[in-house]
């Protein structure tokens, strides 16, 4: 599964999970996120919350395609987590992928970061303060 890898130009869909610290789960998504794969991500997000994660970071750096079904899976995840979207962060460095969040205005729902490090730092602040963390200059992604 982990070595599904590149098949003549596209990447097989797969999820990887990392737990950099207690209570925080990073789910890295690779390949195309569409109707065929969205449920797998949605189920994994629900599992993460059920397992007690207080901060969930979904890293979309490896996503080559995203559609409305993928966005729907992410929405289900953040609703499940509750307690403030700041504890559900997305890493979205690709401008083409980020554009979907802008078209659908979901960039106002999801905190978007450019790197995993930025997302983890913001999630840590939210967890320690118990309050939502706003993006600050030089951190995360500038949203207009």
């Amino acid at each position, binding site marked *: 599964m982990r070595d599904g890898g590149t098949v003549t130009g*596209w990447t097989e869909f797969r999820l990887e999970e990392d737990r950099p610290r207690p209570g925080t789960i990073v789910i890295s998504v690779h390949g*195309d996120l*569409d*109707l*065929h794969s969205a449920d797998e991500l949605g189920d994994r997000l629900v599992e993460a919350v059920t397992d007690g994660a207080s901060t969930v970071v979904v890293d979309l750096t490896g996503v080559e*395609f995203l*559609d*409305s*079904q993928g*966005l*729907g899976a992410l929405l289900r995840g953040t609703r499940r987590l509750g307690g403030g979207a700041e504890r559900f962060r997305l890493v979205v460095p690709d*401008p*083409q992928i980020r*554009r*979907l969040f*802008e*078209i*659908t205005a979901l960039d106002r729902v999801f905190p978007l970061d450019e790197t995993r490090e930025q997302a983890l730092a913001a999630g840590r602040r939210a967890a320690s303060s118990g309050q939502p963390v706003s993006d600050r200059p030089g951190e995360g992604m500038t949203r*207009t």
Partner: protein
Amino acid sequence: MSAEAVHLQFPARAEYLLLARLAVTGVARRMGLGGKEVADLKLAVTEACSNAVRHAYPVTGEGQIDLELVARDDRLELVVEDHGAGIRLPLGVPPSPSELGGMGIPLIRAVVDDLAIGQGSDGGTVVHMTKLATGIPEGGEQAGV
């Protein structure tokens, strides 16, 4: 005006959405379209085909999708047709988002230059999308996108 057409028929199942994207990518690249336009076309064809997969064949769950790609000098036309239950709307009346997949139709509208949704001769749904070849070079799209 010259035109080249590609016609593809495949099962209305989610695992074939990748095939639709590959077909559109191949034709768009052959036309010389840039990365942003190709990304828009992949999104549009996926959303249209996803609607067919999810809604066209509610009884048996089995059916076919016809995808036609017509490359013209100044545009690429994409026609996605199913042969299923239809959208039960008068022709020419745009369906509401809730009737056709939530965010899917608004996303298509955002990335193509023209969208028309109608009924096929057998009562299925026909989604006709047009993307103009604007000649914008790859990476040269507008700021903020």
